[in-house]
């Protein structure tokens, strides 16, 4: 099925494809529709909303949702768009003034999903971010999840992984996670924020007026923690998870300003689950595949955009967490600008005034977020030599450090770090940090991305020959089955 092909007699409205149905993608869809475009929105989840508005009609406790009315308004507009949920995009190309996306649509990882091809004049990439959970010894034990997983399971499924949970990492996201766990019925033993008072004050205290609504939100969460009697400890974190077959406890240590554990401060706490979240990492695969320039350093690489949310690739716009970690308000504002511009709108349009103002304010917020909670390099000192860093391939810190002098590609091939099923999405930043610390040059762990795993049989069933081979050399991404292939490495 091809969608969006401009046939004779159809209007000349611009065709805008939107990848991602979270705040940025939904705002982009609304704005593109307002500018008169024909909109096709694809999301890999079963429902719209992204991680921020992740939900299930019967299972989600309404107390865990924020800004729900806004979501309903955005979703309501989409009856004028073509929407595909459960759509895994495995190929994305932009050339000759057109964008082409190939997806399979259906239940997650099912066999025999429906092939979908979307052609558009412009695309808004709004693929968001996922948790960055730094490795700690014992983090592969059952009962350890990311903070995002704890949040998703509480919101989407109404369950908690354990009964006694410790939340550890960095950033304001730990607060709603703790609140959600408490509402869903777990005892949160403590929330451990790695940053110390100095770093937090440097990030949050200057120019408080820039925080606008954000300060109130944080105060609200701190109040929720107090109501549930959840201790919030700054300058500390989980540095080891204890247990043999599953989590039995953790070692908490005080951390210095660089997040190095301070000797003599370790103490054991009994728990059956741990939620780790040290910030977020953008989901850049589609943007890279489309040829958009990425910039940044070890603290984070993001899609480069101009004032119109245009990337360096023609016809490719980006919005939300892939341009910088700034939260839902930033994503909504950027999405509105990106969608409007992708549809041929102008930044001078009165309708852009609000989003542009919010975007300015939220970019300042994002910078402060990074300053207060950004990962400090000393965290690697809580790793043991034999700590698994790459979870998929069981690659230890020592194995990575021993190969740190090799070019990153050779290091990956020699150690298999980042070559497993998740393709380095989980370990990438940690591997880069270890390589850098050992004197190597950690450039480009995220190059040559795999978009979404699809089955060989599904690709074969697409049947259109050139639809697959030329565009996307399908490669086996792991050894769990030859049936798993993935799209594409269009460029190095």
């Amino acid at each position: 099925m091809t969608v969006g092909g401009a046939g004779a007699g159809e209007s000349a409205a611009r065709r805008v494809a939107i990848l991602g149905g979270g705040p940025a993608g939904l705002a982009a869809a609304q704005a593109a529709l307002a500018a008169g475009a024909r909109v096709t929105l694809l999301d890999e989840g079963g429902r719209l909303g992204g991680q921020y508005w992740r939900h299930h009609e019967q299972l989600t406790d309404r107390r865990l949702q924020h800004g729900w009315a806004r979501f309903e308004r955005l979703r309501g507009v989409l009856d004028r768009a073509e929407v595909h949920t459960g759509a895994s995009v495995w190929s994305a190309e932009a050339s000759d003034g057109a964008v082409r996306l190939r997806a399979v649509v259906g239940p997650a990882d099912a066999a025999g999903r429906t092939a979908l091809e979307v052609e558009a004049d412009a695309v808004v990439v709004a693929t968001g971010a996922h948790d960055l959970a730094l490795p700690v010894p014992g983090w592969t034990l059952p009962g350890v999840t990311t903070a995002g997983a704890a949040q998703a399971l509480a919101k989407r499924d109404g369950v908690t992984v354990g009964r006694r949970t410790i939340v550890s990492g960095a950033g304001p996201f730990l607060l709603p996670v703790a609140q959600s766990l408490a509402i869903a019925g777990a005892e949160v033993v403590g929330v451990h924020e790695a940053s110390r008072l100095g770093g937090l004050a440097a990030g949050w205290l200057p120019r408080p007026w820039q925080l606008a609504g954000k300060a109130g939100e944080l105060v609200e969460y701190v109040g929720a923690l107090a109501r549930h009697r959840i201790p919030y400890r700054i300058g500390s974190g989980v540095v080891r998870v204890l247990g043999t077959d599953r989590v039995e406890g953790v070692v908490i240590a005080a951390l210095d300003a660089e997040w190095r554990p301070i000797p003599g401060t370790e103490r054991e706490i009994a728990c059956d689950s741990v939620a780790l979240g040290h910030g977020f990492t953008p989901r850049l695969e589609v943007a890279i595949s489309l040829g958009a320039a990425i910039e940044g350093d070890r603290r984070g690489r993001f899609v480069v955009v101009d004032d119109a949310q245009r990337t360096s690739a023609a016809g490719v716009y980006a919005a939300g967490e892939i341009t910088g970690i700034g939260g839902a308000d930033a994503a909504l504002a950027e999405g509105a600008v990106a969608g409007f511009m992708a549809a041929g709108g102008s930044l001078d349009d009165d309708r852009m005034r609000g989003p542009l103002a919010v975007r300015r304010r939220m970019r300042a917020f994002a910078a402060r977020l990074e300053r207060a909670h950004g990962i400090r390099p000393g965290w690697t000192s809580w790793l043991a030599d034999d700590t698994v860093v790459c979870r998929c391939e069981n690659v230890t810190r020592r194995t990575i450090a021993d190969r740190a002098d090799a070019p990153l590609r050779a290091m990956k091939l020699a150690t298999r770090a980042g070559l497993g099923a998740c393709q380095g999405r989980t370990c990438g930043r940690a591997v880069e940090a270890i390589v850098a610390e050992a004197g190597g040059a950690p450039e480009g762990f995220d190059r040559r991305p795999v978009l979404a795993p699809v089955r060989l049989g599904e690709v074969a069933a697409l049947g259109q020959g050139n639809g697959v081979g030329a565009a996307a050399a399908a490669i086996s991404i792991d050894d769990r089955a030859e049936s798993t292939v993935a799209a594409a490495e269009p460029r190095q």
Partner: protein
Amino acid sequence: MIRITVDAEPLEGRDGQTIAGVLIGAGRTAWRTAHTGDRGVFCGIGVCHDCLVTVNGVEGVRACQREAVDGDRVEREVRA
């Protein structure tokens, strides 16, 4: 309520839960065997592939992404 089997053992879950949600709701935290021991859900949003199971004979299904359907046959995977 929905009912699925996990390695032929029946489990009950709430209608609409993911397979991971049903398993966790039933008190299970591990359902895949890796080199270093058992694994269960880690990222919860489809990124890490730690929670893979076989569903109705199809391998490599992310339990955190797949909504459970009454009667689903779920099998454990033993992989590195």
